[in-house]
């Protein structure tokens, strides 16, 4: 299905398979029906049950307000789909356009959407990860297990990793009066996403709320008792912490292993696609019938020099799903590019942290309005003299202004739009962990000499 003459027939009775039945998959299915697709729609998902929302799992669910099974996503319309749930897809055959499920079933399609997302990165020692009281938080079941462990009144919770999820969980612990230790390898919380300046603010916030925050240390070992219950953690500086619960919050692993031999451009960084969500093959050529959306998609953003960016953001999943769905049932001339500026939020320690743009794409950062000590401010990020991102603490109403600055490549540092200009508004280096820390290793090698022979081969280095 690639020419305009067959598009009408495809929209009427074509076959679309969506692999990954979470937020991006569901929204894409709804958008496909909105676009007038009346053919067959198959939803494949490895988890049982209807698509559910994940952000509440590290917030409302852990406080005990909302049950873990209460986050099922609302439906904006009927999608009239066949649901194949509880079995993951394990292979994609592009020669015959089939998806194979782990139980051997083969599902044919004319066009497919990949929205398999991300899973939690597990603790690196399997036997220690299996100890009673050691958790990750990605699925409903994860969150329900941790909620029960927190309700049982643990003497202390250890959170390993002070990114957004880890910090949110530490915040809930304090809200519930549970002693909590947070261990982070970087010099401060949130540094990997927002840089050193915001990291310092986040560290102050955690300590002010009674978190035992330990930065610059690695957890080297989780120790259990004779009953297989987690009891103690050992740190790289030789110290230890006694706790009943350990939450491993070390980020995610993109679910791309099933596409390893598919011939698509996949790696630990996701599935590469164009800004219209069409997947690239391993040679970097765009495909016609395979689309990608959500956390697993790695898409070039023209505002950031066409760099390929993967985003684990709620809004990105929703927006990309709609772009992918539209393009799946449109001709080349009618296709839309995914050009929205990334947005993100996190709620922790009573503060609403939001960002617009890509904060890691910056060399300088400056507080442009408000007061850092009051935790009510906006910081703008700049790269080589233009605004590329902004982060707000309890100042969300201003982010639209900064989005416009990013879209118009406004000069950095920007002027303060309000009378509450900070006394000391001087840009400072943004100070992210260096590229050596972020490098993931090669994923391909190139072979051949003549232009007609040169090809890329994927390397088997999935972590």
């Amino acid at each position: 299905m690639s020419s305009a003459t067959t598009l009408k027939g495809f929209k009427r009775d074509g076959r679309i398979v969506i692999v990954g039945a979470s937020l991006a998959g569901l929204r894409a299915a709804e958008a496909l029906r909105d676009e007038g697709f009346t053919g067959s729609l198959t939803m494949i998902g490895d988890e049982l049950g209807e698509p559910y929302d994940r952000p509440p799992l590290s917030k409302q669910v852990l406080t005990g307000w909302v049950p873990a099974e209460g986050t099922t996503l609302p439906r904006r319309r009927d999608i009239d789909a066949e649901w194949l749930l509880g079995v993951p897809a394990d292979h994609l055959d592009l020669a015959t356009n089939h998806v194979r499920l782990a139980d051997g079933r083969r599902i044919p399609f004319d066009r497919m959407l990949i929205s398999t997302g991300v899973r939690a990165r597990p603790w690196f020692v399997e036997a220690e990860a299996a100890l009673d009281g050691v958790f990750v938080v990605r699925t409903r079941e994860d969150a329900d297990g941790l909620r029960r462990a927190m309700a049982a009144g643990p003497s202390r919770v250890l959170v390993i990793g002070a990114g957004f999820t880890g910090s949110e969980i530490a915040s809930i612990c304090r809200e519930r009066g549970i002693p909590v230790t947070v261990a982070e390898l970087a010099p401060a919380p949130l540094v990997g996403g927002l840089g050193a300046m915001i990291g310092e603010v986040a560290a102050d916030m955690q300590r002010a709320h009674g978190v035992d925050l330990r930065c610059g240390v690695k957890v080297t070992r989780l120790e259990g008792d004779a009953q297989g219950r987690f009891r103690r953690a050992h740190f790289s500086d030789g110290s230890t912490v006694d706790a009943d619960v350990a939450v491993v919050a070390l980020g995610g692993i993109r679910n791309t292993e099933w596409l390893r031999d598919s011939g698509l451009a996949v790696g630990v960084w996701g599935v590469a696609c164009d800004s219209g969500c069409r997947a690239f093959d391993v040679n970097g050529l765009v495909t016609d019938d395979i689309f990608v959306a959500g956390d697993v998609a790695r898409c070039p953003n023209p505002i950031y020099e066409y760099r390929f960016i993967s985003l684990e953001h709620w809004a990105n999943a929703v927006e990309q799903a709609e772009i992918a769905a539209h393009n799946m049932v449109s001709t080349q001339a009618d296709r839309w590019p995914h050009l929205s500026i990334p947005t993100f939020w996190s709620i922790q320690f009573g503060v609403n942290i939001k960002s617009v743009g890509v904060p890691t794409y910056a060399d300088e950062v400056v507080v442009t309005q408000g007061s850092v000590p009051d935790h009510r401010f906006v910081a703008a990020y700049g790269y080589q003299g233009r605004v590329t991102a902004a982060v707000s603490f309890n100042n969300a109403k201003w982010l639209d202004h900064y989005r416009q600055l990013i879209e118009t490549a406004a000069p950095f540092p920007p002027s303060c739009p309000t009378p509450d200009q900070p006394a000391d508004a001087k840009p400072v280096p943004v100070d992210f962990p260096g590229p050596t820390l972020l490098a993931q290793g090669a994923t391909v090698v190139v072979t051949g000499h003549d232009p007609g022979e040169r090809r890329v081969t994927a390397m088997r280095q999935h972590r």
Partner: protein
Amino acid sequence: MRIVVDLSRCQGYAQCAFLAPDAFRMHGEEALMYDPSPDDAQREQVLRAAAACPLQAIVVDRLEGRDAAVEVSP
């Protein structure tokens, strides 16, 4: 009933927390926490809150309790 709030749109105007306080609560100055599956008894209040949101960030289930067919594979 089922709802979801697009918190990347939400700007903390708190209209929903006034109109349907059992389903929407402010956490600190501007962060919103909400119940994604409020009791059907709150339906009128929740619909009023969704209509009043200045950012139109609240998505309410349109299938209105009718079961969305999910066939679980064997």
